[in-house]
């Protein structure tokens, strides 16, 4: 029964039918980070096809879903046009929900959260704030210490954030989407 559930959940949310993959391996051949992943894309498709909870959990707790850059090379070359990047987005949100996170996900999630915080409060990305928040989240205090002053001198960093007028709309969007997830479950 588990078999059906995992594949059909994925299909309901993304439209991806994992059984259409016939393992040609073009996605893996074109994936720029395949060699850094626990399971390269075609291998991940095969694991999904088995439909077992054990294999599904392997995927959620792998680094593959976090290292995927959504460069879209795989779907561009897939003879069956299987939307692997869209599937990756879904698998990432599931991994967060189920708290099955590979250690490689930490800096990446910290970056995303720092990025989104900036948008939530100001409506636009505040790069100086993003870097500071990322450092605080990851304790990478010395990273890019030389880059930031260079950026500032070249006029690439604002000292203060740019704020949109209708910041309430941002609060509403966040409250009804990403902050609403916990209530739904």
């Amino acid at each position: 029964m588990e078999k059906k559930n995992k594949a059909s959940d994925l299909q309901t949310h993304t439209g991806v039918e994992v059984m259409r993959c016939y393992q040609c391996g073009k996605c893996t051949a074109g994936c720029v980070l395949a060699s850094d992943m626990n399971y390269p894309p075609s291998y991940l498709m095969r694991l999904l096809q088995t439909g077992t909870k054990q294999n599904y959990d392997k995927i959620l707790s792998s680094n593959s879903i976090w290292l995927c850059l959504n460069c879209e090379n795989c779907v561009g070359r897939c003879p069956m046009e299987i939307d692997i990047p869209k599937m990756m987005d879904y698998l990432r949100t599931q991994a967060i929900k189920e708290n099955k996170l590979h250690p490689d996900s930490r800096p990446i999630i910290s970056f995303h959260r720092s990025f989104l915080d900036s948008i939530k409060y100001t409506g636009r990305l505040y790069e100086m704030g993003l870097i500071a928040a990322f450092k605080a989240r990851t304790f990478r205090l010395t990273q890019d210490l030389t880059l930031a002053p260079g950026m500032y001198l070249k006029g690439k960093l604002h000292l203060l954030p740019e704020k949109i007028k209708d910041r309430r709309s941002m609060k509403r969007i966040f409250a009804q989407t990403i902050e609403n997830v916990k209530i739904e479950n």
Partner: protein
Amino acid sequence: MKIGFYPGCSLTGSSREYNESVVAVAKALDIELVEIKDWNCCGATAAHSMNEELSLSLPARIMALAEEQGLTEIVVPCAACYNRLKVTQHELENDNKRARVKEILQLQYKGNLNIINVLQLLEAYGAENIKAKVTQPFAHKVACYYGCLLVRPQSILKFDRVEDPQSMDSLIKVIGGNTLDWAFKTECCGGGFSVSRTDLVAKLSGNILKDASDRGAEAIIVACPMCQSNLDMRRGAINKTLQVPSNIPVIYITQAIGLALGIGAKELGLKRHFVTVEL
């Protein structure tokens, strides 16, 4: 010619020179850019990696505001923003998703905005018209680097050839340059991992730079702030991965065209790069 304009966050900060060169070239070509009022961030990779509804709502607000302002066509120079807006517009053709997003935004959204990138804007303006205004031919051999987000997914963007795009190459030829055939035109530079996984960006961008360098490129031409900042600002980390360090500059297509139109290096933001530009 008058067109709506969505600059996006990068163009107000780390990629100011892209904005400066877009504005300068538009002015030289008598294209009036009308900025979308009170625009917000498109959400970029962070939003679609973390929450689908958020990733649709942020670009939808931008498009709704543009529609409200009476704009029918907008140009989006940042390849990442361009991609997010186009993909969102496509996703919102689904009735359920559109209804949900309208409920979140509490704004009208028709979804009929024509969204184009900078290469399309320049193409629409006309190669012959640009050629007529060239005062200092851009006589350089360059590698045109498109990256991912300008061309993929092709089924949605429907722009240029997906494996060997030509639009930027054509524009470079119009202003008097030569373009290289090379292997990394649409390979990923590492995108949004610049801060979180600089090591991977150095590796991927290193492969790109090495191929351009081996083939004798004098510059790499881009139309994406993430490609530019990874290849330029991360040059120190990139060069550590290369046997032969490279000092090839990475400039925007609008900077190359600006130079050919006789616009000054400072006005085009060419002094803001980390790798010195001497073209």
